[in-house]
């Protein structure tokens, strides 16, 4: 890939401020100063154009669907902040939550009586392979895991996403509004994950969550050592796994040092030679810079503890542990270190590292102060019922001494999930100013009979259980079940209009 020469400050401005760490802020400042003409004071050697890494070469083109101001009234609202409001209203204006409370009114808003319904933030799944392991599950679509090297930090899941995966529609019907698509877990470093808005689109970019940080998929345990051990390549053991991570982080540290030196030398007016771009190391450097978040497939307590030390050794944050079957054994450690743990309620036994499941795992993690318990799916089936997955944890825990309520459990699939993905300033809770991602449920969403009736993303209705107009259908399923027979064919032929208006191909996403 050719070297990108976009000015770094331009690229940086596209990132939200919270992801700019001190070092980047300094670079931004320095680069801006350069553009103000400081070059006049610098040594004589003429500077080449600065080499800047374009950090967003596949930018989001997502645009919210058509929306109108909407006031949903008289519902039981779980805000995602631990609160439950009864007989409450929520006002959605310009794609944002404008107000949540009782007896709201808005002159221009469409008012919908939601008496008896429950309203929650849009559901967020931090661990999904929709689009990269889509349905139908045919070889041609198996694009989720580049199993050719233990370190494939250079691959990006977004380049594999098939937006026509019918599972996106099914997940939307289950209230899922945002999801992170991750590469698989065969490698120590599986590559970058991407966070998507769950809107129908015929391009990946049309779904991409604009300001969400990238994730880097890492994997502990059995999978990497099995896949590469069988090929007589490191790792074949867990100690080989860790050696593999350390080797990679050493290289990334060196790479970052080279780029930092280049940046500072250039800022000092010198004309340094830019380091050679390396896609694999770009991603790892992004983690060291705090711009890319770690999403670590890691089941076992002792391995998570090692991964935390590893992150301290190389000065990055160990992020979210996924499939953290044994998180309950180290709940204190996870909270103290600021890790999220993403968990299933009850999957177990398919591997040795999944043997010590307890159904109360998420509840035990959640009980510690400053914790971040997340319930995830990793499944095109259970992603459709994350509400019930969270319910299982809540009820089993309450049978065993916990006193969890719906307003607590909803956080595991909304606010905490948003925190794990670094998007909690935008989504995950129903608070004034946040994106209007809303699910209306026909009843308490923690019931087995619960159905999402209406789903809103950025204030726009993207799904309605009772209105076919709001039920999108993937290209793949379109026309699969057409009738072979035509009624009154002759009549139709005669009465058909001579020339039909040409349907212009739509350039934006649409629900149909």
């Amino acid at each position, binding site marked *: 890939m050719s070297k990108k020469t976009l000015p770094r400050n331009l690229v940086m401005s596209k990132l939200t401020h919270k992801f700019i760490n001190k070092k980047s802020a300094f670079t931004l400042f320095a680069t801006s100063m350069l553009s103000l003409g400081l070059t006049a004071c610098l040594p004589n050697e003429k500077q080449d154009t600065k080499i800047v890494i374009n950090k967003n070469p596949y930018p989001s083109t997502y645009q919210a669907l058509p929306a109108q101001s909407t006031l949903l009234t008289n519902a039981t609202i779980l805000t995602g902040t631990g609160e439950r409001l009864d007989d409450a209203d929520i006002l959605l204006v310009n794609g944002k939550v404008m107000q949540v409370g009782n007896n709201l009114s808005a002159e221009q808003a469409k008012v919908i009586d939601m008496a008896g319904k429950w309203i929650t933030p849009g559901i967020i799944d931090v661990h999904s392979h929709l689009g990269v392991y889509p349905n*139908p599950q045919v070889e041609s679509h198996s694009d989720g895991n580049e199993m050719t090297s233990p370190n494939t930090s250079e691959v990006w899941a977004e380049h594999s996403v098939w937006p026509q995966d019918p599972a996106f529609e099914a997940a939307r019907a289950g209230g899922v509004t945002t999801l992170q698509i991750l590469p698989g877990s065969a490698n120590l470093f599986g590559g970058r994950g991407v966070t998507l808005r769950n809107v129908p689109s015929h391009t990946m970019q049309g779904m991409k969550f604009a300001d969400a940080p990238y994730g880097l998929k890492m994997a502990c345990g059995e999978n990497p050592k099995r896949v590469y051990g069988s090929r007589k390549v490191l790792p074949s053991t867990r100690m080989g796994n860790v050696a593999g991570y350390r080797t990679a982080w050493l290289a990334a540290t060196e790479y970052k040092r080279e780029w930092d030196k280049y940046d500072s030398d250039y800022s000092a007016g010198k004309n340094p030679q830019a380091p050679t771009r390396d896609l694999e190391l770009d991603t790892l450097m992004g983690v060291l810079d705090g711009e890319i978040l770690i999403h670590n497939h890691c089941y076992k307590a002792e391995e998570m503890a090692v991964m935390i030390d590893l992150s301290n050794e190389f000065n990055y944050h160990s992020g979210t542990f996924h499939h953290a079957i044994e998180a309950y054994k180290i709940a204190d450690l996870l909270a103290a270190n600021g890790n999220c743990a993403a968990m299933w309620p009850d999957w177990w036994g*398919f591997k040795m590292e999944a043997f010590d499941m*307890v159904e109360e795992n998420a509840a035990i993690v959640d009980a510690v102060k400053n914790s971040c318990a997340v319930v995830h799916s990793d499944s095109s089936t259970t992603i459709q019922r994350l509400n019930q997955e969270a319910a299982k944890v809540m009820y089993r825990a309450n049978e065993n001494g916990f006193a969890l309520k719906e307003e607590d459990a909803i956080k595991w699939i909304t606010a905490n999930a948003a925190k794990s993905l670094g998007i909690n300033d935008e989504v995950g809770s129903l608070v004034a100013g946040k994106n209007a991602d809303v699910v209306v449920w026909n009843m308490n969403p*923690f*019931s087995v009979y619960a159905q999402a009736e209406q789903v809103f993303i950025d204030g726009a209705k993207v799904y309605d259980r009772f209105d076919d107009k709001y039920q999108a259908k993937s290209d793949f*399923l379109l026309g699969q079940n057409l009738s072979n027979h035509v009624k009154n064919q002759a009549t139709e032929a005669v009465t058909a209009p001579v020339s039909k208006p040409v349907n212009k191909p739509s350039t934006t996403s649409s629900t149909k």
Partner: protein
Amino acid sequence: MKNTYLLTSLRCALFGAFAVTTSQVQAESIAITNATVYTVAEQGILSQATVVIDDGKIIAVYSKDEVPESLSTDTLIDAKGRILTPGFIASQNLLGLVEVGAVSATRDGSDKKADLTFDASLAFNPKSSLIAYARKGGVTSNLVMPHGGDKVFTGQSFVVNLSGEFDSVIAQKNAVMVSLGSSRKGSRALKLQTLANDLEDAQKSLAKAEKAAAKNKKAKGKDKKEAKEPSRSQKVMYALLAGEKPLLAYADRATDILALLKLKQQYNLDLVLVGASDAVLVSDEIAKANVTVMMSAIDNLPSSFDSLHNSLANVAKLTKAGVKVIISNSGESHNINQLRFDAGVAIANGLAETTALAAITANVADTFKLNSGRIVVGKNADLVLWSSDPFEISTKVDAMWINGNAMSLRSRQDALRERYTADTDMPRAYTK
């Protein structure tokens, strides 16, 4: 019903050479009073009813008005209005044949060399940690369906109860499994041909043997020959042709299903369709042929070109068309306790509650001739007392009986949770 039971016993005697009959439990007599009893039988739902069990069987079911003034049982349990159902019967899994999926040494459900005589019940492990966990979902018995080999005939299924005791295999080799439909290699046509040819060959050889036997009967002295013993495989095929063993046929696409219905008609097979993702396209034909469908209630994605019509509403649709459905959580052995939630999802998508209950109790019992699945006199006392609605996530099993024995509802998972939530200054390993 009594006849059915006799028939089952007879079949066990005939075809289960090593059949382990359920040991005569010394279960105490129990009366469960004031229960809301879902009989899954003609009586429907009885409120404030009493169920009496003795010697492992249900010996009386009294509606509110029929309850005698005194009940002389060892134990009296006041259900306080809670729901009592038959124990659920799971199916289509490897329970007892796998401990850890990826640990091949703990897997006994498949073998390359397996053919239609494959009897994985010999490998069943009643001490598997999966069993106690499955009981938490109200599952009291299970149709184990090993994956077998890579031939069209993959082997035979067996039935177990979830008592965790060494005598928990109820029926060995109770049905024959075939795997049809698409595969990455080869043609589905050859699979159907193999099945059809094997049935035809068996029918011919059976006719030949019968003819020879008849001829032999008439013959005298030297002409009398010793009847040729059929091979083990032939015996299985003859049992299929006699309708003595159901044929469990995995197939999703409608064309495969129709081909199977044709074979059923031709050979009078006791056919059960398994998987059946696209069965909705031919629901009338299936109903007319009186064929039971065993399927998942939650597989709603077009996972293959054979399954383009998967939907959460399929169980309800098939049932409306008159098809008898068994709900199974396909492929899952470790989480069969979720069977009730799958049934709940089916209810949320249009299935009647009583039909959903039958789909995980009576329908399985009827199809495989098990003496359970209903709360009526004479059935095994496999019962579950629920804290509330059996399908709801907020509900739990309050009590369970298998063959009249009260079962523990504690699993290894409980021990782990207690260890790591205990208040202790010592390393967790001391908390036991």
